[in-house]
């Protein structure tokens, strides 16, 4: 088990390094001089030179990377050009909102996906199966921002149940906190469940055709128990892996939902930083987003090995 974990960790090292290189290179995609792009064409040459020095752009590219990477390793992501505060601190302050939104979306998507996936997997080609196929197609095709606006219109303007925007921290009560995150999580969950439903359907169909399911039936176990106790357990395993793969899409959705619902998370931080041309903040947030994906996938792989004894830890 530990050998497997260590091997998996070693495999992640080049990916993490390359993610850092990619994030570092982002600022060099700016046509011309980034300092000019930040300060505007009318900026004085001395101001541009000063910002160049501050961003380290006056050095050679490898040296720039070495300095930047050295900082990142020590938890120094640079300082915001707009607020002057450390980038990592700004990200850290907004991290809990994004985390809660992400986890709520995941839970909600599973709560919706499991019943639909089970209904479809139990009776392929039935009405339930067809409905789940349509639902998942709608889910993957629906722009998340359109869904969010429709939800706001329905549940915040027409039936006033949920707040249209803003975030209530957990310290001000769980109920108000969940209420403020309900609509954005729901919008994300709809997109997320689409893939889970299809996967769960095919996995459950396969599990129900296995010999252990037949044995259980032959023993006289009720079909309900065969489905929910025996087959679903095995069908859920690949779903765990898929959640790791979908995590990137989920974090991408966060950028949109946080912007629409005015939630002070990492997603809205990126968008604001882009419009402020606050490049160190953009770089820092993009790097943290990618690291979350790497860590989640690492965690999923380890968890998978842990819950599925058939996997060899070689």
């Amino acid at each position, binding site marked *: 088990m530990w050998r497997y974990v260590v091997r998996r960790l070693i495999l992640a090292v080049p990916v993490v390094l390359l993610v850092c290189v990619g994030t570092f290179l982002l600022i060099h995609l700016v046509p011309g001089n980034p300092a000019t792009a930040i300060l505007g064409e009318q900026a004085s040459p001395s101001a541009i030179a000063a910002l160049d020095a501050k961003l380290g752009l006056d050095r050679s590219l490898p040296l720039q990377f070495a300095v930047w990477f050295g900082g990142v390793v020590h938890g120094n992501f640079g300082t915001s050009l707009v607020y002057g505060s450390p980038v990592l601190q700004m990200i850290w302050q907004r991290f809990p909102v994004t985390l809660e939104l992400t986890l709520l979306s995941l839970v909600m998507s599973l709560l919706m996906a499991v019943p639909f996936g089970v209904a479809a997997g139990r009776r392929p080609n039935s009405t339930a199966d067809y409905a789940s196929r349509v639902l998942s197609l709608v889910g993957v095709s629906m722009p998340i921002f*359109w869904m969010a*606006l429709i939800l706001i219109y329905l549940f915040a303007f027409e039936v006033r149940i949920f707040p249209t925007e803003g975030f209530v921290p957990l310290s001000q009560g769980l109920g108000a906190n969940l209420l403020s995150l309900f609509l954005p999580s729901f919008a994300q969950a709809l997109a997320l469940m689409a893939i889970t439903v299809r996967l769960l359907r095919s996995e459950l169909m396969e599990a129900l055709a296995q010999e252990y399911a037949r044995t259980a039936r032959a023993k006289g176990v009720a079909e309900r128990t065969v489905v929910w106790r025996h087959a679903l357990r095995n069908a859920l395993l690949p779903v765990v892996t898929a959640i790791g793969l979908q995590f990137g899409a989920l974090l991408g959705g966060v950028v949109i939902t946080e912007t629409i619902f005015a939630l002070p998370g990492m997603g809205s931080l990126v968008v604001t930083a882009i419009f402020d041309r606050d490049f160190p903040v953009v770089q820092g947030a993009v790097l943290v987003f990618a690291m979350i994906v790497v860590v989640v996938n690492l965690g999923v792989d380890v968890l998978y090995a842990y819950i599925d004894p058939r996997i060899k830890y070689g």
Partner: protein
Amino acid sequence: MAVALDDRGGTEPLVASASRRSLRRLVRNRLAVVGAVIVVGIAFAAVAAPILDHASPAATNFNLALAPPSLLHPFGTDTLGRDILVRVLYGGRTSLTAGLASVLLAMLVGVPLGLIAGYVGGWVNEVIMRVTDAMLAFPALVLALAIGAMLGPGLGNAIIAIALVTVPAFVRITRSRVIAVRELDFVDAARAAGGRTGRVLMAHILPNVLNPLLVLAALNVGFAILTEASLSFLGVGVQPPTPDWGFDLKAGSDYLQNAPWLSLFPGAAIFLTVLGFNLLGDGLRDFLDPTMR
């Protein structure tokens, strides 16, 4: 699987009858037909926009600002009194251009890289695949947003950004298919006959990886259109006065309570188009490549 492809590609008449059989299967797949009809319909509407409606997408009429849907303006008008139906028709041009161009660009970069990684192997494969893994670690929308923001506004830059985040998918699928066919007899035969690497790749391996690529392309056009709309919704990418679904939807969201049609119709257009490409991609997969899931 690979053997089946090999058999099918064996002789000319076989290919013809196989493709006719496939076509029949595609038509029987009703959802795929629905997808094709949607895609063709949207493409026609976008191309024929000036014929379908003589109004210009930029024509303003302040007396008619925020008019609800009516016979004259079926989708209503926006804050400047511009006809939303006309804007949606013209917006299709932006979306389809972005979707098709970015996928084409991603294929032009990703497919050769996948061919090389799969065929050459060794450290070349390691380098290409690790870079691909690293790119996949970035949430696609976040990366596209950051690249688009750095490159600056404009449809061209948005297309480059979307293409870049789509490349890894094409590298991966191409590589895995190349590995599946590269040890087969017909490839060995081509090599033994003195075929140079480039020729073996283009004439013998590429045709055998085309099917999954086609499926991936159709599905990714949907993804690209969704991403382009997301970028313009967030304010990166296409800038006014170019009609764009994502941008118009965002502009309309300020009037959501009193004039929901401003956002409703551009959003419906995005949804319908992406749905069309997804249905088409699913259908293509069912008959071109049943093993791919």
